[in-house]
């Protein structure tokens, strides 16, 4: 079984790596000090298991899980017991290890990982924040479902636990994730150009190097998303 370790603390990575080393057939292929580097790796490599810290700067373990379309088995590693209930809302999480992790407890977690299969394309979170109806998107703001005309959306930006939805006429702050709204928006019109931004391709004014201008917003385009953006353009 191949695994990766994501933890911002080098000491923790070394310990988890040693715990893995003590188990036959479990191979650590990579270690990452942050989730962003791990996402890049997972775009090009398959792994069977991820050891994931929850407390990391900028991008928490749960933020990371939300970015994965088909997450592999995940074992959370943390010094905090407060997230145990939240953890089990995710089908992909097979166990929750509290640091310092003993070899005995670690072995049990690996046994659980070995026996658990993950549903393909499972929806990670039961909470549905947006619903769609034809060309409309309904967003839940202060317990009201507000209708947004999808083609009028020109930009969606992730900001922590919220997303900003910018339209021709109004902007909305919604408690949701970029991944959830991406699933609701037609991919013929919208494109994720950066981990924090989805744009309406029809609304692009110009493109310069690694950024696009939409209305008055200059949006960064990540290197990995640039080829897809260029494919969408009707280039002369």
């Amino acid at each position, binding site marked *: 079984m191949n695994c990766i370790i994501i933890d*911002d*603390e*080098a*000491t*923790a990575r*070394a*310990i988890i790596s*040693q*715990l893995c080393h*003590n188990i036959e057939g479990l191979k650590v292929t990579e270690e990452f000090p942050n989730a962003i580097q791990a996402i890049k790796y997972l775009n090009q490599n398959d792994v069977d298991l991820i050891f994931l810290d929850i*407390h990391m*700067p900028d991008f928490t373990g749960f933020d990371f899980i939300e970015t994965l379309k088909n997450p592999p088995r995940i074992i959370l590693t943390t*010094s*905090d017991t407060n997230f145990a209930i939240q953890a089990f809302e995710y089908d992909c999480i097979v166990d929750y290890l509290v*640091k*310092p992790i*003993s*070899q005995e407890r670690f072995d049990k977690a690996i046994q659980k990982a070995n026996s658990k299969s993950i549903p393909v394309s499972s929806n990670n979170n039961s909470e549905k924040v947006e619903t769609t109806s034809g060309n409309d998107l309904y967003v839940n703001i202060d317990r009201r479902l507000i209708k947004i005309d999808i083609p009028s959306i020109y930009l969606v930006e992730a900001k922590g636990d919220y997303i900003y939805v910018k339209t021709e006429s109004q902007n909305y702050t919604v408690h949701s994730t970029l991944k959830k709204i991406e699933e609701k928006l037609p991919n013929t019109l919208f494109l994720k150009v950066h981990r924090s931004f989805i744009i309406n391709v029809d609304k692009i004014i110009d493109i310069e190097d690694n950024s696009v201008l939409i209305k008055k917003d200059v949006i960064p385009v990540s290197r990995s998303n640039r080829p897809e953006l260029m494919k969408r353009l009707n280039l002369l």
Partner: protein
Amino acid sequence: MNYIKSLSGDDKSFEEKLFAIIKSEFPTEQQIYLNHIEAQNYQLTAEIVHKLKHKISILGLEKSYKIAVEFENNLLDESTELQEEFESILLIITNFLKQL
């Protein structure tokens, strides 16, 4: 230290590697702690105490670990109670790492 021994299974190279990592990582985290507490940013101080308490636990300082847990909770309540005790623990670890 029992914890580290139990992981290493007498693998001296792992023990040396782990102590080298702790020796390199601990002073940086200690400095981050000092910066945040001086700036009275209790949320960020709690975050770095959270990280430091893992090192306290793997070094087998059980009583100190309990103090660190309480101090982290105090910081989240914007209280610096147990600051002096926590900083004594950091000093103990600093002196211990110097001897390695």
